[in-house]
């Protein structure tokens, strides 16, 4: 058993059957080549079960949830609330703790804005207030979505931003954790897996340190919830954000899970219809969570699609998904590591490491690597992957990144390695 909690008792995924569920994997790309999609860390593809669920909603039930004195309105509400319960079960949470947002990015912003809104909210919001002298702690390996909102919170409130650094192999540097997490720390915002190096920080350990000092813990689960079992009851975090589109679900919907008592005391971020209790011209009161944080007509079709994605992933078994990706990652680390001139950013083993493999090639810029791979039908990401400070800390300007998911094969990993060799040959100095 590895420290990621993946037990040996897994069964292999039937990848050929899985691939048959994803219509897009059947299309040809440049030069009529088959698609080798290694960019699921950016967004995943959607199986027909998810597409059908969304289409069925629009075809049969479409209406504005939580409104309308009619049958369709009831059905839409049931579908939306059913999806909430389904997502809660997926992460072992409670349905009242699931807030639907536009994306993980918006979910993280929701918490950050609620914290500055706490300044003018009632006494129940006291624990969310930050100001001069308070500290907000992040890490150097964050995606911009879990960094910039906290920088902005500090700018709005006068709080101080601090951060964990990283080790040369792209893991979190915990050597000064006891100094960083102190009585001034109000919130610790940390990723559950780097989207660049794949490193999985010890979130539970950090959360315990933070809670001992009375700080709140926000976890960016965008690269975790899609890829391995995540149990919020065991995680130790106060908030967890993730996006549907990275876990076989639709774009346009994400999730904020938060502890019930915290959501209950937290002021709203986006305001408007659906989230109010009583509205007068002078002032309004708000509904309890989760509705308090869901202004506007709910994205019911997207929620239904996300619920179908949860069904799909649970049918595969998240332990099996994790084991499959771990095998692909190990293969990629071996195959790319064997090529002269390739530098892998991040841990070289799969211990506490997920399926994001970023690398640089001596003398070939990532954008050019990506272009050559694209020519071969291999889709990767090639830039700073919205983690510019992390790249700076690793001493590189940008990188090429391959990410894996349930539909990827070992043959595709071999194609990637061969493509890297071709790129090296193409750009070899004349």
């Amino acid at each position, binding site marked *: 058993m590895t420290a990621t909690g993946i037990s040996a008792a897994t069964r292999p995924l039937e990848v050929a059957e899985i691939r048959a569920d994803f219509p897009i994997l059947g299309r040809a790309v*440049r030069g009529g080549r088959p698609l080798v999609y290694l960019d699921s860390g950016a967004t995943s593809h959607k199986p027909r079960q998810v597409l059908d669920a969304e289409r069925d909603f629009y075809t049969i039930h479409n209406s504005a949830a939580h409104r309308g004195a009619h049958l369709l309105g009831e059905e839409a509400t049931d579908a939306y609330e059913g999806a909430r319960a389904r997502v809660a079960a997926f992460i072992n949470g409670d349905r009242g703790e699931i807030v639907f947002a536009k994306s993980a990015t918006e979910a993280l912003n929701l918490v950050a804005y609620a914290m500055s809104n706490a300044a003018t909210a009632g006494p129940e919001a006291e624990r969310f207030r930050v100001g001069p002298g308070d500290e907000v702690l992040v890490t150097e390996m964050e995606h911009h979505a879990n960094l910039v909102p906290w920088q902005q919170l500090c700018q709005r409130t006068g709080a101080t931003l601090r951060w964990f650094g990283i080790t040369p192999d792209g893991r979190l540097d915990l050597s000064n954790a006891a100094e960083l997490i102190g009585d001034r720390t109000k919130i610790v915002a940390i990723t559950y897996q780097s989207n660049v190096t794949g490193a999985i920080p010890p979130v539970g350990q950090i959360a315990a340190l933070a809670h001992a000092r009375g700080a709140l813990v926000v976890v960016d689960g965008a690269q975790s919830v899609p890829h391995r079992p995540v149990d919020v009851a065991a995680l130790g975090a106060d908030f967890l954000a993730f996006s549907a589109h990275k876990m076989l679900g639709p774009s346009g919907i994400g999730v904020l899970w938060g502890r019930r008592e915290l959501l209950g005391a937290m002021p709203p971020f986006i305001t408007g219809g659906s989230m109010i209790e009583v509205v007068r011209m002078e002032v309004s009161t708000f509904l309890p969570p989760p509705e308090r944080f869901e202004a506007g007509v709910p994205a019911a079709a997207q929620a239904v699609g996300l619920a179908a994605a949860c069904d799909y992933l649970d049918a595969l078994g998240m332990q099996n998904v994790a084991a499959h990706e771990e095998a692909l990652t190990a293969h990629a680390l071996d195959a790319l590591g064997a090529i002269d001139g390739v530098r892998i950013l991040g841990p070289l083993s799969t211990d506490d490491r997920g399926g994001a493999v970023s690398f640089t090639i001596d003398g070939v*810029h990532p*954008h*050019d690597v990506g272009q050559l791979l694209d*020519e071969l039908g291999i889709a990767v990401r*090639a830039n700073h992957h919205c983690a*510019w400070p992390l790249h700076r800390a690793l001493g590189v300007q940008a990188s090429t990144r391959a990410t894996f998911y349930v539909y990827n094969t070992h043959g595709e990993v071999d194609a990637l390695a061969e493509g890297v060799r071709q790129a090296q040959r*193409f*750009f070899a100095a004349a």
Partner: protein
Amino acid sequence: MEVESMYREIILDHYRHPHSRGLRGPYDAEVHHVNPLCGDEVTLRVALKDAGGEPAIADVSYDALGCSISQASASVMTQTLIGKTVREAMGISAAFLELMQSRGTAEPDEDLLGDAVAFEGVSKYPARVKCALLGWMAWKDATAQALDVTGQADEEQT
């Protein structure tokens, strides 16, 4: 490979053996431009001179980090624009911009653009157009600033 329509040999030559690379003086304006999509960056200097009563490009130099397309494009830009009057250079720059935005449908004027016509293939790859334009846009910005600094802006505001 189809991609060779983009990575023309002349582009790879400029990438491997860039012109005017390395910042040098004297100069009238310096700018720093970044492509936020990929983090590519260029620091670029422009020096103007007087050419028969009209401002002209005395020198362009740059320091850059980026892909082959952005590096080669900056190199070709310096080779194409140094020595031209600002008026001529702005015309060439506009023609290059038009070529890059053509999605592969333009018929570029080789007499006007010189080696820069080699980037025609890049216009078929929308994600790379910003790479090709990075150095050119930095040049345009630096030149506008240099015209201000040297008091020649009024004549060139068209």
